[in-house]
């Protein structure tokens, strides 16, 4: 069964390391849903948060291939692990020529933030668990979403 897998890859912070990871995924025929890479508290270490879709076997193969890269230090598929805090960030622009109060209500319920308001639309920022972000998008859809950008998922272990 195909499902979404969130994978955290810890790599050595070398030039081109993100290209190695994404290149490997492309060359082996995997589609990346989202990818974020950034340095960590240790400047020699870089963390990549990756979301790919595939069967259990395919994902196992992809993690093995990623592990083989010389720069890969550690790799965890957190999809079935409970002790991880996963967050996603979104900026979303909604039509708000009418129904403004309803949108405001949603914003309040979701504890989102308004970052810009014009005559015709409102721009909102929200961060939270991916499911919350997804739900927020669904609820805003009837008002007319003009545009949104999602950061992709980032995760950290509780321990």
């Amino acid at each position, binding site marked *: 069964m195909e499902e979404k897998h969130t994978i955290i890859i810890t*790599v*050595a912070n070398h*030039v*081109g390391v993100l*290209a*190695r990871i994404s*290149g*490997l995924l492309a*060359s082996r025929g995997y589609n990346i849903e989202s990818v974020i890479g950034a340095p960590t508290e240790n400047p020699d270490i870089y963390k990549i948060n990756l979301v790919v879709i595939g069967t259990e*076997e395919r994902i*196992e*193969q992809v993690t*093995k*291939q990623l*592990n*083989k*890269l*010389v*720069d*890969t*230090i550690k790799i965890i598929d957190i999809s079935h692990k409970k002790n991880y805090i996963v967050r996603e960030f979104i900026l979303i622009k909604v039509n708000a020529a009418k129904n403004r109060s309803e949108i405001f209500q949603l914003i309040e319920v979701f504890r989102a933030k308004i970052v810009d308001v014009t005559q015709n639309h409102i721009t909102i920022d929200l961060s939270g668990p991916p499911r919350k972000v997804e739900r927020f998008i669904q609820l805003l859809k009837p008002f007319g979403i003009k545009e949104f950008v999602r950061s992709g998922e980032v995760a950290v272990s509780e321990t």
Partner: protein
Amino acid sequence: MNGAEVLIDALKKEGVDLMFGYPGGAVIPIFDVLYREDKMKFILTRHEQGATHAADGYARATGKVGVCLVTSGPGATNTITGIVTAKLDSVPIIVISGQVRTDYIGSDAFQETDMTGLTRSVCKHNYLVQKVDELPRIIKEAFHIARSGRPGPVSIDFPVDVSNAKVKSYSYPETVDLPGYKPTLNGNPRQVQKLARSINRAKKPLLYTGGGIISSDASKELQKLLQKTNIPIVVTLMGLGSVPYDNRLFLGMPGMHGTHAANYALMECDLLIAVGARFDDRITGNKHTFAKNAKIAHIDIDPSEIGKNVKTDIPIVGDAKNLLSDLLAEVNPRKPDGWNNTTEEWKKKYPLKYIQPEDGEILPQYVIDRISQIADSDTIIVTDVGQHQMWSALFYQHKKPRSFLSSGGLGTMGYGLPAAMGAAMAFPDRMVVSISGDGSIQMNIQELATCAINKIPVKIAVLNNSYLGMVRQWQDLFWEKRYSSTCLKRGPDCPKDCRGPRKECPQLYLPDFVKVAEANGLKGLRAVKPTEVDSVLEEGLKVEGPALMEFMVRKVENVYPMVPAGKSINEILSGEE
């Protein structure tokens, strides 16, 4: 010292005393160091692809890292086929390419190419040296990565300003610090015990071994295991020589052009013990029926190979040599039994055979057979890719490891001659025979001159059937003899719908290989009749320098046994249907 001097010194510290390559603008500083260097031999090939395959041949024959040095841009891109060839067969080579000045990188400068980008998916690891201070560490790491774990090619891209840059101080590191790279060498003892128990219980165990046995120099351990357990064994193209051909347990090569005995054993066994082999599609045929009665144990140093192509019941990650020793200690002795008899009966019932008529066309199998009989047991055989490669695998009597060099994974035509040069440079006292087809030999034929001028005594046997024989064989068997673009004699006057040799076929074959050999300073010989095969071989192999022997063989001979692609490996065509 400058970067170029550091590079050469570091290479010497890694034990390199021979390189292959080709100069160019971006590597002149390095070649300038070589100009005054006594302890580093350099072979100037005629093409960078030749240099890469030569380094590969050297590496396969010796087990050491082969090194080649080329310039930026076209020099670098010409090495790509050689790098992929080495990658797919897990061969340790290092390709050092020049690069434009660091401040020009990304500007489409003259002879600039993004070598790290190009090689990323086809090498084990790659480097762009950005500062001269990084160089010693990079060289140290590159050699470590190339030769350890599952070996493979490493590319080092070296900008010209870095080779000119002065270093303040230079010391070569003794250790590497690669937190992300620690190959597992020792297998999990519990898994080994589990495998030993499975072997003790199995009624029809079968060993299936590949190039991993050669890479980890585990032939001795494997043979000891065979002696103790009497388990029949099939050996892939990449592993040929790790078990001598005359071992009773040896059933031959499995797969598409495997023997009946090997393929039947794979289909019948109840425990399949794969060691250093990767269940390639040329071995498994239809994956769903492959070894369907068997529990599968897989020993491999590369965890990503386990479970990649077939489901594994007993996975063991580790070095073949260590694991075979561990297994030897754990497993019970086993006497030959009914299963052994069955496999031996298959061997007897379906021997590899050919019938060479005394007057008539020369059969390619006969030439290989005669080479096998005439050459001594130390001979290194190198092949190109195609029919002659399969006949060499099947009809040559393989006796020793690292003595059959062939491009298995990538199937690179043009591999043979330059790889043979590399092997001959590594072992000046051993006979090196490069067996080739008339198609393959032309893909790196420029290296004939390299052989002659450097006195590299490679003996080249060209089986000339005037066809790209392996593709023609597929067209014959599966495409109703529509020999599209596989005839090397075909000219503008030929009929569009040619389906094979006829009386009206052009007589002229180009090039004349004997003349090509002679023009390049090699002894050139040709056999047209079966009775001439021995005399040509005896004369050609005896020549002091390199020689080219051309054998005009039957044009439409096919390689059998053959399993059509995607079929179960017991659906074997034997050519007598």
